[in-house]
């Protein structure tokens, strides 16, 4: 649910690895528990041509397709951003909050809107959100299988 995420696109403009967790270094390993080596290994194998990209059906099986609630959340977020850019911060906040309610798993929406709501995205509200998420047994990072 958090960045960094990556997408691989081949020479023909086709997605061959959908949105995935992809750390390029181990800077945050003490927080995430994720070693960058595994990801960099499969990335290098693809770039060098040592490993073919998976077939289309396997790629599609790894995609997270949006629900109607996800799309409603995106519409609310987009409206909030449009209002915020026009100085209508209070009105924008209503739509950011609604978007977060509709897509509680979407930290791009929930955390990404914090600066536009005057909230520190590294501060106590984020930490409380993070704790609630992880203490419910939900992973903050969900790398795709190789």
């Amino acid at each position, binding site marked *: 649910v958090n960045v960094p995420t990556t997408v691989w696109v081949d020479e023909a403009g086709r997605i061959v690895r959908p949105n995935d967790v992809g750390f390029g270094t181990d800077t945050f390993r003490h927080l995430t528990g994720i070693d960058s080596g595994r990801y960099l290994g499969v990335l290098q194998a693809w770039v060098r041509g040592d490993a073919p990209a998976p077939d289309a059906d396997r790629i599609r099986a790894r995609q997270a397709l949006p*629900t*109607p609630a996800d799309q409603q959340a995106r519409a609310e977020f*987009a409206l909030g951003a449009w209002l915020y850019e026009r100085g209508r911060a209070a009105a924008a906040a209503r739509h950011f909050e609604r978007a977060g309610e509709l897509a509680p798993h979407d930290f791009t929406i929930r955390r990404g809107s914090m600066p536009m709501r005057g909230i520190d995205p590294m501060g106590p509200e984020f930490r409380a959100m993070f704790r609630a998420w992880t203490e419910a047994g939900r992973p903050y990072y969900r790398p795709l299988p190789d």
Partner: protein
Amino acid sequence: MEATFTLLDEGRAVQVSARIVGARIELAPEVVTGLLAPAPDRPPPAGMVELGELASGLNRPLALDLDERVAYLGTPADARGRRLASLEAPDFALPDLGGRIHTLARQRGKKVLLVAWASW
């Protein structure tokens, strides 16, 4: 009450004249026809069209702010799902730190690693 209303059609802003009756946003047929891509199987509306009913009929998410006189018509989940399932990477244009615009299409012929990050 007649009022100018802003419709954001997947981000494209269109100013329209609307009739606001309570929580209903009513649009004239010519406004609706001008807004939406032609659909051969969809006859033009005969009378005023309520925005929420229009969005519902098109299966499109609608985010509405009546006080601000603005609404956002988004992409239906099934349409977005079909786009994703096509595996075609949609083109985009973004500036680098020097203001130079880069598009995904310009990278055709190379393998591309797209990384989403946040500066916070």
